[in-house]
């Protein structure tokens, strides 16, 4: 991986990367804007103004309680991204060291670490979320933790596989011969070389996290009222589908847009960062 492969102009020649990063940047921008302020308070109800179509005061209309749909969708972006980013960070913080440790040590400890990771992997995020709800009660933190726990084995496996394939590479062997400790080798030589892979995985997990958060909130295990969330907006809109499809379309399209953006970005990054694919492309 040499420096020139990151040249900006080359990156943006890749179509899915360019499109994906533009879409993701949009969502992040909106989420940041919503942190400063939304056009209206996304939790303020005005029942007299309920179920109104788009107007100057409410660009995307109002929901069943007269809340501003645009403000809710914007605030929902913040919640979605925050939960998803935190969950990925959680997965990296625990998964990467676990995978590295197993790959470097080998033997029985390796087995143990990877079997633990398999064990966690066996529980879908939904089951974990239901369990956590019984312990801590429902909430955004619960969703974050549930998705985060689900992310741990994913990162552990990716790290393990990649780190294992590095073990026989010349520069690793050289480092070992020169007397470097295992930890140093892992941090100095292996981690930088598997970083591209982790970045790609992180992008994919981010998009899965957005979906998982929406699903958890939709069934009432994630973000709790009155906090806005795309999943909750969808749930609220469900019985109103025939009357005001707009209410379901707005959060639905927000989710599609964000997930699509992240997936395109991930695809692009994988193409650009994976040396094998690069070689094949010639």
């Amino acid at each position, binding site marked *: 991986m040499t420096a020139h492969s990151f040249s900006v102009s080359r990156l943006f020649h890749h179509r899915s990367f360019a499109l994906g990063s533009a879409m993701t940047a949009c969502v992040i921008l909106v989420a940041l804007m919503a942190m400063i302020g939304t056009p209206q308070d996304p939790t303020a*109800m005005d029942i007299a103004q*309920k179920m109104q179509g788009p107007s100057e005061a409410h660009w995307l209309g109002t929901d069943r309680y*007269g809340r501003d749909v645009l403000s809710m969708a914007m605030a929902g972006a913040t919640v979605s991204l925050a939960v998803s980013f935190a969950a990925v960070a959680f997965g990296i913080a625990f998964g990467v060291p676990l995978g590295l440790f197993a790959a470097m040590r080998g033997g029985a400890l390796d087995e143990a670490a990877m079997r633990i990771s398999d064990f966690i992997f066996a529980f879908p995020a939904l089951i974990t979320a239901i369990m956590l709800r019984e312990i801590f009660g429902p909430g955004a933190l619960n969703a974050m933790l549930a998705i985060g726990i689900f992310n741990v084995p994913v990162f552990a496996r990716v790290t393990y596989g990649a780190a294992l394939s590095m073990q026989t590479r010349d520069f690793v062997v050289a480092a070992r011969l020169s007397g470097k400790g295992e930890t140093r080798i892992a941090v100095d030589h292996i981690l930088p070389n598997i970083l591209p892979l982790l970045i790609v995985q992180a992008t994919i997990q981010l998009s899965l996290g957005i979906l998982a958060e929406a699903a958890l909130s939709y069934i009432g295990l994630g973000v709790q009222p009155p906090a806005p969330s795309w999943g909750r907006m969808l749930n609220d809109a469900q*019985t109103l589908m025939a009357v005001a499809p707009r209410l379901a379309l707005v959060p639905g399209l927000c989710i599609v847009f964000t997930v699509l953006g992240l997936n395109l970005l991930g695809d692009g990054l994988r193409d650009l960062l994976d040396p094998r694919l690069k070689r094949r492309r010639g």
Partner: protein
Amino acid sequence: MVRYLAKACFALLALSVVGVASSAMAAPRTDLNAGIRLEPPHLDPSAGAAAAIGEIVYANLFEGLTRMAPDGAIVPGLAESWTVSADGKTYTFTLRKGVTFHDGAPFDANVAKFTLDRARAADSVNPQKGLFEPIDAVEVVDPATLKVTLKRPTGAFLFNLAWPAAVMVSPQSAADNKTKPVGTGPFKFERWAKGSQIDLVRNPTYWGKTPALNKISFKIIGDPAAAYAAMMAGDLDAYPIFPANENIPQFQKDPRFTVKIGNTEGKTIVALNNARKPFDDIRVRRALAYGIDRKAVIEGATMGLAKPIGSHYAPQDAGYVDLTGKYPYDPEKAKALLKEAGVSNLKAKLVLPPPDYARRGGEIVAAQLKKIGVDVELVPVEWAQWLSDVFRGKNYDMTIISHVEPMDLDIYARDDYYFNYNNPDYKALYTELAATSDPDKRKALIAKAQEKLADDSVNVFMFLLPKTGVWNAKLDGLWENAPLPVNDFTAVRWRD
């Protein structure tokens, strides 16, 4: 090949359309698919409080000595007539002759005595034991005559006997009624496909008028979106209480359906734990009453279909007084009252059971109380948890709940009820009411009781749940109102 297939399909379709059309012309339908929201835990109304039990078996399968008419009046059931002694303490019932249970067992005064004694026994599991508490003795005069002596005159006794919990059961089958209910009604139990539907079929040996239907299927479809789709697709012919008010306008626009917005007895309240600080302070309770805008809650949680209430009493019942103007929405006054009570930064938990009126109402109430400086945390729970934490455990600050029992002013006089009201003046008032049988005096006392509850602002009284009935426009005989949580389909018929 594809073309042949398509032709074959088309021919089949055409044939089936012709088939449907010809059978529809021959005679009106005699089956009914009715939607219900919750699956009952079992089918014995004398052993379980779930309203879903009565919604299936009352009047259709089980009958009581008296029964409730669609307008809430008490009419003869298995007792064809009765006389009341001058002191109001002795009721003599003349029972119908020739009545048998679905298993062939005869119904007579001995069976009636068995039923009443079983319901009021010390080890009875009847969910409404209070209905039978006034009974002192039950006597069989002859097989067609039953004499019931009361401890004191009880104005509502005939009404009590019309409840689902007071239906007549046979000594031979009473123990198995939970899974194989055996009654005297015009329909008998056929099949219960758990999680999906319960079928009743016509009872050929019914003593009374033969019903027009010969089969009723109660289909359990609780999800509002699925219920809407099932109605639209014709899988359901009737949904006596449709679960999503937001779909009502679409049914109203569609000529295939009849929509009736009627009354239930569901008094929907924000119940307050009167024993817990600061809700033990009347000023705080009044502040909450001023701080909740009923009109907005009704608009947002029931799509504007509900009627507001000002006390724990339904507008259609005898003796109602309109107290809805007692606490008009006034956030400033609410704030002043809270300040007067020395309460600031009040944080409270609002427990919300699953129905929409609670979940949606809770969101709105929380937003409104925020404006008067009360920080409400919403706690959504399942029914089992609500029953154990709130109803039995009395471990809660506030909760939103609908009390569907008719004229249940007695619950505020109970010592150990989950409101923790425990007010001696109200108890005295209720004791007087329970012992009064003169209709006018009763009305006056009922009015006084409503005023007392509103004045003490025991709970925040919000609205009466509407009965949003939707059914096929060709159906007649369904109830517009729900004076009891029941679906009496005995008079339902299809028009040609």
